[in-house]
């Protein structure tokens, strides 16, 4: 009798597998095939004059070089190329230089911008392969037709995605789901309804890329919610690069992201925030610990944090502080050994960059009141309140933490987004992100949304969200301008916004 029951279950499982897969197949509608047809470039004719002012920093691929002067365009592209680390620039340079020169001769400003934008986007995407380690040929026919994916001109809908750690991060996750569509309720952009949906990256790069790749087939653009490794891996994914899928995230690292034409950082990278940490510490009075032992810098060891680590070390040394770096395994490792080391060194100020779960453990093990350092750092972009509360809990409510964040704290929600109720700071952070995104979508000329037109509309522009502040892409795709200081208040279980640093 029992056997029959199991048999039933197994058969049911199998049957459901067969049926669902069959169901998934029949409506081939899902497989969004070519909709736009026309090569995106045609639609992208945005005036070149605005599109690109070259930075000269060489940090990023500059798109439309000034269309007026052909040779200026070439020269600019040349400097970008020389300065950039990645390979993609080679292509972008070629694109913009030819575009620029032809534009110059035929007199069309559109020529310059088209050349520039397609050059940077397609070139940027294949660039990694072409100029880099490998020599695979570039075939870019798919980019054009793909560019209308996620845009339904008939129903007037725009499908966008946000990925975050719905599971596995040690912070509450439901808010990602509820927070993502929140901003768009009852709103339209140029007559389009924005359908925003969150999906799970499991707080691991592998699943993140897998999910991003599959969502790139349905969505117009993707936003990276949290997690440096996940954001970096998704942005760099071959599928996103080839599909030229606009990808936005808070600034995390420049590692591997500088040569991507479709990636935009909407806040300062962790490395760029290093000097702000010093400024914040100075104001908070913990920059120079009285015992003269200097700072401990606890950073989880991943190449994506290498730039942040180097930046904070040099910023602190510049401020005359001794620095002791403690690298931990990516997953955390032995919190006992690390907390021992912190106590031994008697570091009164600790900079932390790593997994939230490990942070909570470390604060607990450090052991207030005997040893109760000031914790500081950058960019825990979402879920700060829950992490802070757990840290408070583990330290007998004596936890002292002040971190930089791309968003102000939830305490500002009432003033900055009146009438909206937020469950927590994750919802609030996503709301703020979407607010900036709305500005970006509005910058697309006309109502012809394509991935290319969106990317071109962003390049060189400045956007201001009421909540999070200004994003300025005039110097490249890393548009952050400042960061908010969030100071934990164990009494209220919330971070308090404690100034804005630029």
């Amino acid at each position: 009798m029992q056997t029959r029951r199991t048999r039933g279950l197994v058969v049911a499982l199998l049957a459901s597998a067969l049926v669902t897969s069959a169901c998934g197949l029949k409506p081939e509608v899902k497989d969004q095939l070519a909709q736009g047809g026309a090569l995106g470039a045609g639609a992208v004719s945005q005036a070149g004059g605005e599109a690109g002012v070259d930075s000269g920093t060489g940090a990023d691929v500059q798109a439309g070089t000034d269309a007026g002067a052909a040779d200026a365009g070439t020269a600019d592209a040349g400097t970008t190329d020389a300065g950039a680390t990645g390979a993609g620039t080679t292509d972008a340079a070629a694109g913009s230089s030819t575009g620029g020169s032809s534009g110059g001769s035929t007199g069309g400003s559109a020529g310059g911008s088209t050349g520039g934008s397609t050059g940077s986007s397609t070139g940027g995407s294949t660039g990694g392969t072409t100029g880099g380690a490998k020599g695979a040929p570039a075939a870019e026919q798919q980019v054009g037709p793909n560019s209308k994916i996620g845009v339904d001109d008939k129903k007037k809908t725009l499908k966008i995605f946000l990925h975050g750690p719905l599971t596995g991060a040690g912070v509450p996750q439901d808010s990602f789901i509820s927070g993502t569509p929140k901003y768009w309720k009852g709103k339209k952009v140029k007559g389009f309804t924005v359908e925003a949906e969150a999906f799970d990256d499991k707080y691991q790069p592998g699943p993140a890329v897998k999910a991003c790749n599959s969502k790139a087939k349905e969505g117009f653009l993707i936003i990276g919610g949290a997690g440096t490794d996940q954001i970096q891996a998704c942005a760099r994914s071959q599928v996103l690069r080839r599909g030229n899928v606009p990808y936005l995230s808070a600034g995390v690292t420049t590692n591997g992201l500088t040569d991507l034409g479709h990636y935009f950082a909407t806040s300062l990278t962790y490395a760029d925030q290093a000097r702000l940490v010093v400024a914040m510490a100075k104001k908070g009075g913990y920059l120079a610990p009285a015992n003269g032992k200097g700072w401990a810098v606890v950073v989880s060891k991943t190449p994506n944090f290498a730039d942040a680590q180097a930046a904070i070390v040099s910023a602190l040394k510049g401020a005359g502080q001794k620095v002791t770096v403690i690298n931990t395994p990516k997953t955390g490792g032995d919190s006992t050994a690390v907390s021992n080391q912190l106590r031994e060194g008697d570091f009164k100020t600790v900079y932390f960059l790593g997994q939230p779960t490990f942070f909570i453990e470390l604060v607990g093990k450090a052991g207030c009141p005997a040893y109760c350092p000031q914790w500081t750092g950058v960019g825990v972009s979402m879920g700060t309140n829950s992490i802070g509360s757990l840290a408070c809990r583990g330290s007998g409510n004596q936890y002292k933490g002040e971190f930089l964040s791309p968003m102000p704290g939830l305490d500002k929600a009432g003033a900055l987004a009146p009438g909206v109720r937020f469950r927590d700071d994750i919802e609030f952070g996503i709301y703020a992100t979407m607010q900036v995104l709305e500005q970006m979508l509005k910058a697309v000329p006309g109502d012809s949304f394509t991935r290319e037109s969106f990317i071109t509309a962003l390049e060189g522009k400045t956007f201001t969200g009421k909540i999070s502040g200004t994003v300025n892409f005039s110097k490249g795709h890393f548009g952050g301008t400042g960061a908010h200081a969030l100071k934990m208040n164990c009494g209220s279980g919330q971070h308090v916004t404690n100034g804005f640093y630029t």
Partner: protein
Amino acid sequence: MTPLALAPDTTYLAFEFSSRITTPVISGAINGAVYGLLGLGLVLLYKSNRIFNFAQGEFASVAAFTTYAGTAGFGLPKMPYVFAAILGVSAAVVVALLTERLVVQPLFNQPKVTLVVATAGTALLLIALEGFVFGAEGVGLDPVIAGDALTSGGLRVTNQGVFVVVVLAVLAALTALFFSRTKTGTAILAVSMEPTATSLVGIPVKRISALTWGLAGLLGGVAGILFAGNGGLLGPGALTAFALIPAFTAAVFGGITSLPGAFLGGVLIGIIQTLGARNIPESVVPDANQVVIFFVLLLTLLIRPAGLLGKET
């Protein structure tokens, strides 16, 4: 895609004996006590059933989560910690008994490895259930006794840490006495050696089996509550992820058939782990505290499979 040149890993403090050796040894020993407690349950089941119980970590998690639920209230009035802890340990015992009845008994005559795979399946099932009920984000459980017993330089010994060591020592001694001095204890050993013969002479094999699993659940439950109260975050499967492998290594290293061995093994593994983590920089060997465990286990199995105090394998 070349990674940025990595900045130098650790500006290590000058070698100081106290910070490199003494402190890690003491704090490692305290960490290891929890491995020893989990290891006791593993040894118990190995002694009696000749299996490795991969669900031991989850018996522990269940107890910790239940204790948390008791103290946090969950809609009901909040319980005092002691009652919540008793409830937690009871929950672990119940889960262990259910595992015995639903998974172990039906597989009594199957090869041992099948049974081991089944215990791993049980662990996965329990982790999923914990995830359903408590969510993935993890909870924080208070220590049994708050406060520090000693802080000096880098060293910090919490009251909870001292308590864990005492509990481990007492439980190891009690279980060892149980096996050597009581009738039931000897009956358990007899069953493990000759199941058929013992049932012929009238020892109730099934009841004995339930008793051992219940005991294992109890030991696991105690370990779970003490581990979760250490300041870490208790998520679904936390104990399986962080403590099960060190506990197995502790049990094998100390001698898989020896209860005092589990005590010794646990403490030693804790010490070796923390020594490794403190003295091997991350840039030389990533996650050194996992690597040292692998080598301890491998060398034990190759050189002396019976372990430090074990008499047979």
